[in-house]
């Protein structure tokens, strides 16, 4: 029964979280934290804990706040979601 969740749902193209994470590395992403703060940047790498390293990150609260260039590291603990962006605006 415990196996079903991991393997049963995948169809031909598996888009489980593990696959998704491999697919979005290097892409522009938007990361939202539990606190509601948004970060947009290019995903450098991430791990199974949703710890994230990003480049050219911009921080949005209501309007735009801080700008970070170079690398930003986000602890996975705080991540609400990671969204792939086709174009970063």
């Amino acid at each position, binding site marked *: 029964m*415990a196996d079903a*969740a*991991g393997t049963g*749902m*995948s169809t031909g193209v*598996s*888009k*489980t*979280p*593990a*696959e*998704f*994470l491999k697919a*979005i590395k290097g892409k522009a992403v*938007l990361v939202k934290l*539990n606190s509601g703060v948004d970060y947009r940047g290019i995903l450098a790498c991430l791990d199974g804990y*949703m710890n994230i390293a990003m480049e050219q990150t911009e921080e949005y609260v209501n309007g735009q706040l801080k700008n970070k260039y170079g690398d930003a590291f986000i602890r996975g603990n705080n*991540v*609400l*979601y*990671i*969204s*792939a*962006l*086709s174009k970063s605006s």
Partner: protein
Amino acid sequence: MWVIMKGDKEIVGTLRGFDVYVNMVLEDVTEIEDTPEGKKLTKLDQILLNGNNIAMLVPGAKPDYL
């Protein structure tokens, strides 16, 4: 799939995949913030939603205002 999270936030999207922690990959997602009832952020492509904050899943349904 309609996902209701802890803390007055809801996500509507198409379920693409999930794992044992109920982290979910959703496509064509609309994110709804419920405090003043109306902030909607629509994001396309795909999102990986952290299972940590999920309270409820309603398959095959969406909120009335959508």
